[in-house]
Each structure stands twice: as structure tokens, then as C-alpha cells.
């Protein structure tokens, strides 16, 4: 939602873009599924909102641009989070401990890579709800890392049709995301 450049504190699009999306994603990322006593992701969002109206950063000339303001608020959130980390005793969940116990051997890396690919595929599929053909293509492309010819053979489609499906994928999924994913999942052959 970057259709506005100058921040207007009355604009609800900023809230959708920053508080509903960017800061929600940031809070999820900072918490990493861990718990800090009874302090939750929602509390972190609330404290960030509190800071937003206390400091009124949009009045600063360098932060009047919507993107800069979003970036600044993410940093404010990180700062509040760090303060909480220092204050409260961190309680790692059982999951995280178990993850650490797995060690860092090659097999673990391979498993981790496969699981990451599956997570990426699941996120990509959410751009195409109920489209089973696209879901299959995404699995073959991003999880099984197949070439176009292999995908065509497995899906019993012509290579041309596979190319069309891939074009649709690139058209629907935002380019910056696709570029990162293609860079991360190198093509074979």
C-alpha cells in the first residue's frame, strides 16, 4: 500500500499498512513463538502504538515519508522489545530447546532446508486459494526443485503450459518476493 508518500495521521491506510501488517509481522518475528511472562505480541503492538502517539514522529521532517515512518516504527518496536528482554526473564518454549538439541550437522541442515521450502510453498499457495493445479506446480517447483520438463511430465502437461502457469505465479506473487525465492531455490538443469 505505497500509494501515498506523505504521512497523514488521519489516514487509515497507514494503519493497515503499518500497524496491521508491518508491525504485526515484526512482532511475530521478534517474539519467535517465545513467551516473556505475560507480555504478549499484542502488548508489544500496544506499547508501540502508545509510543507513536506520545512521540508523534510524523511531525519530524525526516519521517514524513510513509516508508521512513514505517521503518522508524519497526525500530521503535525493536527497542521496546529489547527493553523487555532486559527486564524480564526469557522463557524459551520446549520447541526451541528441542530445535537446539538437533545440532548443526548436515542432515539437520537438509531437513531444515526442506522444511523451509515447504513453508515457502505453503505461503505461496495462499496467493492461489483452492487452485489445486497451482498448488501442485508450487510443490514441484519449490519443494521438489524440479525442472520445467520434469514438472510437465509429472503433471502430464505440455512444457508450454508449465511456462504459462509459472508466468501466472510471477504475475500474482509480488516480484521482490519471487526474486528472493528464485535466488534461494536454484533451478536445476
Amino acid at each position: 500500500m505505497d500509494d501515498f508518500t506523505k504521512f497523514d495521521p488521519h489516514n487509515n491506510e497507514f494503519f493497515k499498512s503499518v500497524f496491521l501488517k508491518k508491525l504485526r509481522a515484526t512482532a511475530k518475528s521478534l517474539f519467535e513463538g517465545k513467551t516473556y511472562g505475560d507480555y504478549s505480541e499484542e502488548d508489544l503492538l500496544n506499547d508501540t502504538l502508545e509510543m507513536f502517539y506520545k512521540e508523534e514522529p510524523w511531525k519530524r521532517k525526516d519521517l514524513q515519508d510513509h516508508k521512513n515512518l514505517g521503518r522508524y516504527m519497526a525500530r521503535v518496536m525493536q527497542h521496546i522489545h529489547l527493553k523487555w528482554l532486559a527486564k524480564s526473564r526469557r522463557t524459551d518454549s520446549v520447541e526451541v530447546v528441542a530445535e537446539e538439541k538437533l545440532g548443526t550437522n548436515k542432515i539437520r541442515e537438509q531437513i531444515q532446508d526442506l522444511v523451509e521450502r515447504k513453508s515457502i510453498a505453503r505461503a505461496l499457495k495462499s496467493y492461489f486459494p483452492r487452485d489445486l493445479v497451482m498448488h501442485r506446480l508450487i510443490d514441484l517447483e519449490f519443494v521438489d526443485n524440479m525442472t520445467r520438463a520434469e514438472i510437465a511430465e509429472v503433471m502430464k502437461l505440455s512444457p508450454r503450459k508449465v511456462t504459462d502457469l509459472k508466468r501466472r505465479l510471477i504475475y500474482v506473487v509480488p516480484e521482490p518476493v519471487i526474486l528472493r525465492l528464485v535466488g534461494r531455490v536454484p533451478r536445476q538443469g
Partner: protein
Amino acid sequence: MEHGNELSPAGIAKLARKLFGPEEEWDDAAVDFVLRLHGIDPDESVKYVLDLILRFMDRRKQERKEIPKELLTVFVKLAAGAEREDPRTTNAQRGIEKALHAEPGRVSRPEVVVRSFRFKRELSAKDENILRKLQAKLLDDKKGGD
């Protein structure tokens, strides 16, 4: 740890940073994708942000602090476009609209807003009236007894 084939929130956070860099650098497309990695539809209803604002207003109300006018405008705009089953939104929205259009000098706007955010656990005007009558009756009885 992975649950079967799924990454843990910590795993997703690591993957997101690997893909898009630190959180503050994420653009809108990256943010959308990270939310999808967490299994959240980024275009889901604005219920989440409305709840966030309501919680914020509630906290400010308890601390007897003024609610920023900018936030009230944002709330009204968001609530107008949202289909919500929670009657708190409709009631709050009505209260805010009234407060924003109140005649200046008649009653202070923050006061109107604070009043409009009363939850059910607080007394209604009817209950207050009943208590007032009871109070008067008790005082009369006490006077009579003296």
C-alpha cells in the same frame, strides 16, 4: 522445531530475515509474504487492528488520558468499512462520531468519548438512577429514625 512439515515461529523468523533482511527493511511485499509464512492472511478483515485500537483506548481510558483525535478518525474510517459482529465497535463508533461532532463548550470531547466507551461491567444510567433513589430513600429513613 518443526511440527511435521512446518517451521516453528523461530524458524519462520530466521527464514524471513534470510530472505528479506532485518524487519525494518521489509517492504510491503515482504511483509505480506512473512505474514503468509505465519499462516496469516494479510488481507483478512481489519478486526485485528480495530481490536488493537479498542485495547489502546481502553488502556487510555483507565489511565484517564485523552484519546488522540487522529486515532479516533482512523478508527471511525476503519470501522465504517468493517463488518463486525462485536457490538462494541458499533457502539464505540457511534460514541466517537457524536463526540467529534459535539457542540463545543457543552461537554468536553474526551469526556464524551470516555463515557461512550463504558463497558457493561459499569453501571448503566438506569442502574445509577435506581441506586440514587435507594440512596435518597435510605437517607430519608435515616433522618426519620434520628
